[in-house]
């Protein structure tokens, strides 16, 4: 780790020198564009909350012991048929109790409420909380595609005073304890998902905050060096 740090420090020192090669300057610009250091309103993405889902390609797995033998419920079947997934409506669905996404376990609410409360990006690309009610997969071209059926928390009523609004950078928000009537079908490998921490607030609301993944599960991490002129240099390291 120390060696990586020293290597990165040397790169940074080299970039600060006047005779830095043009190709590196061009790389600086490209990196700067690709990894905008801060986008207003998207602070939560800075803290790596969505890292788990963003890196999740080919990192979703299930244990065969978690396959549910019971028939798929009518509610799930109907939600699947109503969802705009571009998949055939009459397809064989395999349901699970648990799913591992990038080393973290997600459960359906009847198995563990703690591991079923999540934040995900809905169709409008808003980060919304909900509870996983079903975990299932379908097969397409011999490839397994995983989905979550999530019951979304509704926003608080218009007259409700949210004390977290002045502390937007804290990341928590009040949500209603009432859930949406419809289930959201969330494709695991194409949607950003993370766990949530919550506590009741009054009689009909709750505070919810998206959580960063646990750091000790990281197999690799990224060092981002910031150049005084806005350069960012990413180096993948082994922890």
């Amino acid at each position, binding site marked *: 780790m120390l060696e990586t740090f020293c290597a990165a420090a040397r790169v940074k020192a080299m970039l600060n020198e006047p005779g830095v090669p043009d190709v590196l300057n061009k790389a600086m610009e490209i990196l700067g564009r690709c990894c905008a250091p*801060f986008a207003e309103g998207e602070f939560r993405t800075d803290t790596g909350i969505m890292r788990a889902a963003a890196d999740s390609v080919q990192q979703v797995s299930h244990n065969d012991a978690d396959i549910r033998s019971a028939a798929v419920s009518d509610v799930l079947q109907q939600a699947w048929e109503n969802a705009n997934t571009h998949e055939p409506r009459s397809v064989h669905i395999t349901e699970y109790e648990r799913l591992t996404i990038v080393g973290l376990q997600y459960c359906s609410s009847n198995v563990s409420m703690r591991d079923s409360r999540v934040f995900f990006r809905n169709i409008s690309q808003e980060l919304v909380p909900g509870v996983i009610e079903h975990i299932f997969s379908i097969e397409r071209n011999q490839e397994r595609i995983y989905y979550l059926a999530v019951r979304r928390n509704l926003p608080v009523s218009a007259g409700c005073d949210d004390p977290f609004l002045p502390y937007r*950078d804290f990341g928590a928000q009040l949500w209603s304890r009432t859930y949406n009537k419809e289930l959201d079908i969330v494709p695991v490998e194409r949607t950003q998902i993370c766990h949530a921490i919550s506590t009741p607030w009054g009689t009909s609301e709750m505070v919810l905050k998206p959580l960063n993944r646990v750091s000790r599960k990281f197999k690799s991490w990224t*060092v981002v060096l910031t150049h005084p002129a806005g350069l960012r240099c990413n180096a993948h390291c082994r922890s």
Partner: protein
Amino acid sequence: MEVDDEAFIAEELVEELAAEVGEANNQQGVPAEVLTDKEINKIQVELCSIERPSWHRGPPKNLGDAEHGKLKAEQWRSAIEFDLPVTLLKLWKTEGGDDRRQKLAHSTMCLAIAIRWGVSHVASARHAQQYTKYMTAYLEGIRDVFPGHSWRPNHHACLHLHEFLLRYGPMHGWWMFPFERIIGVLQKTNTNHKIGKHLGQILGKY
């Protein structure tokens, strides 16, 4: 023996300073302990109602009691990440609390936000600026609530961290937790207290 003498002198100094601080607080009529037993009990009840994923280790349920011992770094992190700011805001901002308690709740929230900006996986001038803004607000809040508070070296050091964020990038790349972990491993290693005799063997192990 010299080492013991130095330790004794340092201890005396600390006790002397602590006495001065206590005296200063008493003179200004501000008690050093802001939380009553009843409030600590309320906080503990609130902590029990927090629902977290199974991998997330929260602070002890009896937070504030001596029985739980020293908190682990992970517990401090989760306590300031959600538990304490939300609980204090709930108890003192919405359910009622005097001006001093409301300021303390606000101050705790500022600290939580400062840490969030400071430990971001991205470092930029804006991150450094926001970190300093909220950290300063936290320290000003503490000064306001505890006028006789004696500042510690850490309070001074935390106002320099923005320089490091700009120079070295995100804190995850240079914070001391990996070294602390190695120190923890070394502390658990059995030794015969003969330092230097088997140095090569120890180094070979790591």
